[in-house]
């Protein structure tokens, strides 16, 4: 027995039971919506666990009480008195079932109403457009030069209601940040709205939750909740055009960007690159992760992603870019200067 114990993957089991939810756990809410849903979940869970225990106990008791071990069929029996009693018990059980289900219905509908409508009239509006396989994030504004366009990383102020307008450019995707709220499908041809509010500052991971093709597994996003002043500073930074390169290597990097395949798909405001096929890179250096939350935003990861994205996300729309080493180095320096 003892030698066999060493084959059990204890490390994995301990990690599995790890309490670190990683900021994407349904039962570790950071927002009132997810909090309401968590409450509802535990209530229903408690009721259903009680039902389960009772039913299993009933079957076990029934089996143990009347069980006979025999290998040939026993004679047929009947129990009229027992059946008469059972009629009452089963009727009672059905009644309890109906009442329990009704209660669950009521608390579900009430919770649904609670998470449905925003509490304030001044929400921050965000337009999320899902593409294969990244998220185009826009903060619309009646003034065109006050509209922010970014990708995959959503910044929100803590404590303010956020309204998300959804759309999809190609297939059905689903916007889901477990710690914040329930998911909403982004369906081409439909534009729906939902809201959430984050009460605790932090970075919350989300992921596409509707199968959308080859890289559905790597279509993540994050919601960065920060204090209002930090959020406003971020907004102001996003509105600026791209920083002018300060070193000669960065200048060379910008040239590489503008003379290779990069400008065919990406925008860097303030330069000639203005294509909307891929994500907006004007402030790429300020993001925590790249490639839709697949890789950390470091020089090495960025270089590997640029040179061969198909290795990391096979089937993604971005092509490999076999650049000369000096060009690649300069490009990385330039991109990492785009705060």
């Amino acid at each position, binding site marked *: 027995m003892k030698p066999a114990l060493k084959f059990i993957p204890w490390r994995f089991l301990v990690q599995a039971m790890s309490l670190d939810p990683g900021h994407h756990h*349904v039962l570790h809410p950071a927002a009132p919506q997810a909090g309401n849903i968590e409450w509802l979940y535990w209530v229903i869970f408690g009721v259903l666990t009680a039902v389960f225990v009772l039913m299993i106990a009933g079957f076990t008791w029934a089996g143990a009480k*009347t069980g006979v071990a025999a290998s040939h069929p026993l004679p047929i029996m009947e129990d009229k008195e027992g059946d008469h009693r059972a009629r009452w018990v089963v009727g009672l059980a059905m009644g309890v079932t109906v009442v329990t289900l009704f209660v669950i219905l009521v608390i579900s509908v009430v919770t649904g109403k609670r998470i449905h409508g925003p509490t304030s009239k001044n929400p921050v509006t965000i337009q999320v457009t899902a593409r294969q396989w990244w998220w185009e994030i826009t903060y619309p504004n009646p003034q065109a030069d006050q509209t922010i366009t970014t990708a995959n990383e959503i910044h929100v102020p803590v404590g303010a209601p956020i309204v998300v307008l959804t759309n999809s450019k190609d297939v059905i995707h689903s916007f889901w940040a477990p710690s914040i709220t329930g998911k909403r499908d982004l369906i081409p041809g439909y534009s729906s709205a939902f809201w959430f509010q984050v009460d605790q500052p932090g970075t919350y991971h989300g992921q596409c939750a509707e199968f959308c093709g080859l890289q559905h597994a790597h279509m993540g996003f994050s919601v960065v909740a920060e204090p209002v002043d930090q959020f406003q500073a971020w907004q102001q930074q996003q509105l600026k055009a791209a920083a002018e390169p300060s070193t000669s290597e960065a200048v060379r990097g910008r040239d590489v960007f503008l003379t290779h395949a990069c400008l065919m798909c990406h925008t860097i405001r303030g330069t000639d690159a203005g294509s909307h096929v891929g994500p907006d890179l004007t402030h790429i250096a300020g993001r925590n992760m790249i490639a839709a939350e697949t890789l950390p935003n470091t020089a090495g990861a960025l270089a590997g992603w640029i040179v061969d994205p198909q290795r990391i996300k096979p089937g993604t729309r971005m092509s490999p870019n076999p650049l000369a080493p000096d060009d690649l180095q300069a490009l990385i320096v330039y991109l990492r200067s785009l705060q």
Partner: protein
Amino acid sequence: MPVAEPVIANDQDTGQSELARRLASTWRQPRGFWGWFCNTHHTDIGIRFIVTSFIFLLLGGVLAAMIRLQLVRPENSLMGPDLYNQVFTMHGSSMIFLFAVPMMFQGFGVYIVPLMCGARNIAFPRLNAFSYYLYVGGALVLWGGFLTNTGPDVGWFAYVPLSGPAYSPGHRADIWSQMITFTEVSALGVAICLATTILRHRAPGMTLNRMPMLLWEKLVISIAVIFAMPAVMIASGLLLLDRLIGTHFFNPAEGGDALLYQHLFWFFGHPEVYIIFLPGAAIVSTLVECFSRRRIFGYTPIVISVVATGFIGFSVWVHHMFATGLPQLSESFFTAASLMIVIPTGTQFFCWMATIWHGRLQLRLPMLWCFGFFFTFLIGGLSGVMLASVPVDLQVHDTYFVVAHFHYVLIGGALFPMFAGLYFWFPKIAGRMLNDRLGAWHFWLFFIGFNLTFFTLHFLGLRGMPRRVYTYGPDMHWQGLNVLASIGVVFMTAGFLVFLVNVLRSLRMGKIAGNNPWGDAGLEWAMSSPPPPYNFLHLPTVSSRDPLWEDPPDQPVVVGLRDDIRETLVTHSLDAEPQHKDEDPGPSIWPFLTALTVSAAFVGSIFTPWAVPVGAPPVIVTLIGWLWPRGQSPTPRPSGEQWSR
């Protein structure tokens, strides 16, 4: 009318009497290679459904093992995204379309229902055979596609626009769509056969009130199939039209609607899961009765529950679409309906518990599987209650929580009762008993493995892991649970291997089963095992719900039917009074030939719309051959003349 020969009881039939010999000759099925394709007897077709669907269960299981192997490590490279997408689509499609319905509804139904009704063959036997060949055709199309890199890769429900012409180039999604057509036409055919058998071929005296639970369930499911299958055929048909000839049903830019597909699909999809579950519940009802050694408690409530489940099952489909942004009022309605459907299922559970409580339980092997069903389906049903609640569903929809839920209800509600039914009816089908010890090993290995794999998935879903991802990042903290889930596969595989060994061994050297080794009450146990080609020496009559238990020893049998032609008895649908005689058409090659021409037309239409006008004439030719009059018409007789009490 004077009886020419002494009446031998069905269970005394050794096949040696003059009558038995004449009947065997009249009802014999042809042998040899071509004879196999001409067979129209329900027992042979039923066995074919069971064996073929079991093969696809195994193949689907291999795909599942591949999925679990891929997910055992983050950023694993066992399968790339393209192959993985094909594998999980094939897994779901094979399990639902090529295993669950063909086994639970078609296989068990076709074999057992005519025997339980007291008939010599199923109604419309050629349609029955045709349904089998069409099912095999669909299975070959799907798997042939998979093996030639044309397997569908859009998920088993193939949502548009992903499966539409713009985002699924090539013919992969077309293969999926046509497979749907094959299998659903096959299910419709069997539904018609079973419904007719149950309504018009029951033994005299078997009023609706005396029908066994399994016949009630098959009747309800046949009607559900007739209403549900056309919806998915429309969905896949419109998808095919969009892809092949450029219609715009699902193109929002031209006035189409992507959600239309989901409504059409799930209008079928939800009744489909009840089509898979209710046969399991009926098997459990039969076995609970037999192994508690008493008639079932609450016959009427269970019948009403089965009918109610079939009915309410059509009003809950939108609970698969709660995340699409529907109005709150409709979400609440569908929550209410989805919770309401728990009531009939709960009623059945309570009645089963009462039957065991006030009976004398014999925990034989089939009953052990029923207890496995109670445990497993209960967990699945309860997690379903969680999913009916919209806010919770919005969090766990499209995650591994849902994967855990539906595997609990499908494996608990179909696979456990399937094994219970296989262990129970194997003696009748093969004439030998399966080994009890191997069966117990099978049960425990499978039970432990199943719970290890799928209970773990509930937690994965709550931790944020979505469905249909070919890999995940190492910083997601999902690896531990994935490893645990993948270990369960080993146990389940071992269990399956034990079962296969058990079957192959028992076919050769299992204990010989008599007519009724379990002491059950149904008419299918009234003759030898396996049944002779004519099923019953004399068509029985019944005067109670449990004929072999409660009918008197001198219960009359039907005489007066000719034994030199394949004469059958048609009875009234409500009270089973004899109405007239009919003639079984006998073995025929036309169902197979028609299935060939229909398959050719379907497969051709994957590649070109011209296949429809070009493929239609051969179909018409084979249908003409099928329907050509045989020169003998049934002679209706006024009722009452055949009773010889």
